[in-house]
């Protein structure tokens, strides 16, 4: 049984039809064509599907779309403001912290939210904050450095 649901994604209200078990990730990717959120494990482990729901990082693959009605959803596509990259995005570029890029969207959203809460993190704080996002390419070093760089620049 499908029902109409209004989801506010990146500041825009979208009326979509989804079933009771349809995940937010499926709606974002298949209905709204916002494919920056990735499906790595569909089990809430890898973190590649991380989006912000009312500002908090959530696993879109484990989040039922109907439960997000009335909340504000931010995906990687909606992160830049007025076309400008967020400081964490620029820091990821400047630190060469991307290889294949499949985990990058989730990493950026996780780190962005973390930096808003903690503007002066230690390396261990950063390692803890990113521990729910798996990267198989980089060995994490440059990603951790990127988050530290964004913090040192005073941004998120």
């Amino acid at each position: 049984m499908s029902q109409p649901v209004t989801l506010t994604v990146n500041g825009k209200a979208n009326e979509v039809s989804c079933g009771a078990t349809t995940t937010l990730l499926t709606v974002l990717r298949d209905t709204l064509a916002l494919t920056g959120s990735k499906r790595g494990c569909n089990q809430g482990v890898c973190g590649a599907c991380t989006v912000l729901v009312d500002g908090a990082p959530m696993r879109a693959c484990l989040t039922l779309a109907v439960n997000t009605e009335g909340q504000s959803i931010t995906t990687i596509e909606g992160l830049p403001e007025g076309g400008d990259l967020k400081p964490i995005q620029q820091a990821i570029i400047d630190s060469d912290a991307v290889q294949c890029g499949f985990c990058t969207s989730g990493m950026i959203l996780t780190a962005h939210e973390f930096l808003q809460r903690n503007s002066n993190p230690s390396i261990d704080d950063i390692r803890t904050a990113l521990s729910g996002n798996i990267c198989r390419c980089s060995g994490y070093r440059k990603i951790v450095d990127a988050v530290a760089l964004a913090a040192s620049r005073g941004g998120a």
Partner: protein
Amino acid sequence: MDGLEFNGVGSSPHRLEIMEKVTGAAEYIADLSRPNMLHAAITQSTVAHAKILGYDLSDALSVPGVVCILTGEDFPDGRMGAFIKDEHAIAKDKIRYFGEPVAVVAAETEGIAREAAKRVIVKYEELPAILSPEEGLAEGAAIIHEELDDYIKVFPAISSGNMASYTELNEGDLEAGFAQADLIVEGTYETAPQAHLAIEPCGALADIDKQGRVTLWSANQSVFRVQANVCESLKMPMGKLRCLTPRVGGGFGNKMEPHIQPLVVQMCQATKRPVKMILNREEDFECVRARHPFKVRCKTGVKKDGTIVAREVEVLLDCGAFGDDSPGVLGYSLLMCLGPYRIPNSKAHGKLVYTNKLRFGAFRGFGNPQVAFAGETQLDQIAEKLGMDPLDLRQKNLIQPGDPWFGGGKVASNGLQECVDKARAASDWDNRKSRTAPKGKRRGTGVALAAHISGLLGTGAIIRVFEDGSVALNTGAVDIGQGSDTVLSQMCAEALKIPLEKVSLASPDTDGSPYNWGTTASRVTYTTGRAVVGAAAEVEKQLKEHAAQMLECSEMDLELRPGGIVGVSGSDKEVSFHQISLRAHWAAGGPIVGHHTWVFNQPTVDPKRAVCSGIPFPQVGVFSFGCLIVDTLTDEASGKTEVVEAWSAVDVGRAINPSSVEGQIVGGFVQGMGFALTEEMVWDGPKLANPTLLDYKVPTTLDTPYNIHSIIVEAAEPDGPFGAKGAGEIGLVPVPAAIANAIADAIGGHVHSLPMKPEKVLNKMLEIEDAT
């Protein structure tokens, strides 16, 4: 020219595609779609070894929205395989492992396809399942490939029964070598199957045009291997299939050979509609491929002073159900099993045995980390018995510049000594015993050395000069995330002395790109780089031919000047690439196109030095070297080990993009650390028990030390592009061995099997305690 100014060789410009990757705009296979597209799903077998008696599709076909179901009966009798052509596109007549695709369903949505796929009924007659190489070799064992003798093999394979391949290398006189030894140490070592776990699961999308020609996009490491595998298994002419690639979300070997591409192409041809299939994580675990579990018997003889005089290595490999890259892994592991040491009398031999498991195949390191785990831990065991420092023992036996490799292959550049010296100094190895451990922990420091090749097979590059004087570079090499698009473009920019932004890179396309065997074997920088340099030289020659006529001088007097200019030496007379290219396009000579293709042709074996049989690679590659030192803490109560710090010195010939080389060293280290400590695919009978990220543990940030030091050593390869050789795998190769040696340093004994999980280490500690 200053390479740094133009983002040429030796600088670290950001990835060409970086902006799309940080904004979520990069498109991977799961992000693509076509109008009127069908979605496909597979039905997987629920037995490991069986004859297929028939299918009942009625229930599956009754699901609304199902368009087509294909089974083995609907596929031609073509067989694919990199070394042994033993694999159909789908199970046909017979099931060979639990989880093997037995049917493909296409439907209007993925949900419908998956629902219907569950309802496909296959009638089986079960056969005894062979779940280990030993069972496969046992007398009277059920035969997995009855037609093995008739299969096409691309190398002189020695195979029979369930033995897919036997390989042997001999140098010197083994018996005489052991007879000279004052000490002989022998041990067996085992490694676990490791999942590649690229975060992007495998997938493919095919579309068909009005002439019946198919275009195929897929997650892959070589559009050309995709084309060859699909065409072989479906008996298609190669000209009927065009293979392309979107961005690829990691590979590590998993995407080099086929996964579901043939299934998607066959469904596309059957339905005449675009068809897309993306595996879920469990399917990706169960039916793509994984790193071979190895059993290694290693025996080494040394003199009292530490000089190694003989070594014998025997390996037993689980092939899984299909040959895939396994014969190559067997042969390569034997070629590398002496490590980077002078060992005059050696024998390496091993068997590759079919079992009823998913195929094992290429995985970063290609058998080398497994034999390095055996050989390098055994060296530490020898050092302990001789009362020598482990690094001093290695130092005494290092392969020296000018020495050939095991089998007689030429080693042109050798930066091993510098790797050892730099890692030793950076890690303060000689003061390691002064490091202390917190209460309840034991501290260990371990070392391992490694060598690895970069090379293999054919590759090419085409460079065209546009009318505006900028260039298009087309190599057919797939960037799987490691950064080769940027590195190859840097080389092109450097060779032509133009800014990086004047090079536009073509995406691999079997219609338009020159052949490239693949992104594998640490080969793209070295082999494709050489092709790029060769093509650039051809472009330079043509530019100078034009310039000589335009400037009325001899070609000999012309030089490339930074910024896309050809000038007369010692004069200010010059013309730009733009001016030359306009002339070439509109007036004389024709548009400028430079190309270069080549195949790696340096012999692996010198028959005057070595006696070998069953060698899969007659021409293997040039050599990179590494020295890794790790500092660990092992918990006395749980046995859990954490790596505190690591120093990885790697000889890459020349770092074209140093930041990307660091990415390879650190990324390889962490993937090797997972292999060493936590990662293990576990079977419950015939069924993989942990095909999920919840149950299969890859390192997270908290499992990974921050201080992984990349030490880049540059011993230029004489024929390498700007001296470069491969960097992709070498950083992983010594990791399990170095960690094993660190744990042994901490607890007083070696664990002989991977992964070195807490319980294994704890048991070892208890065993040592009991013995004392």
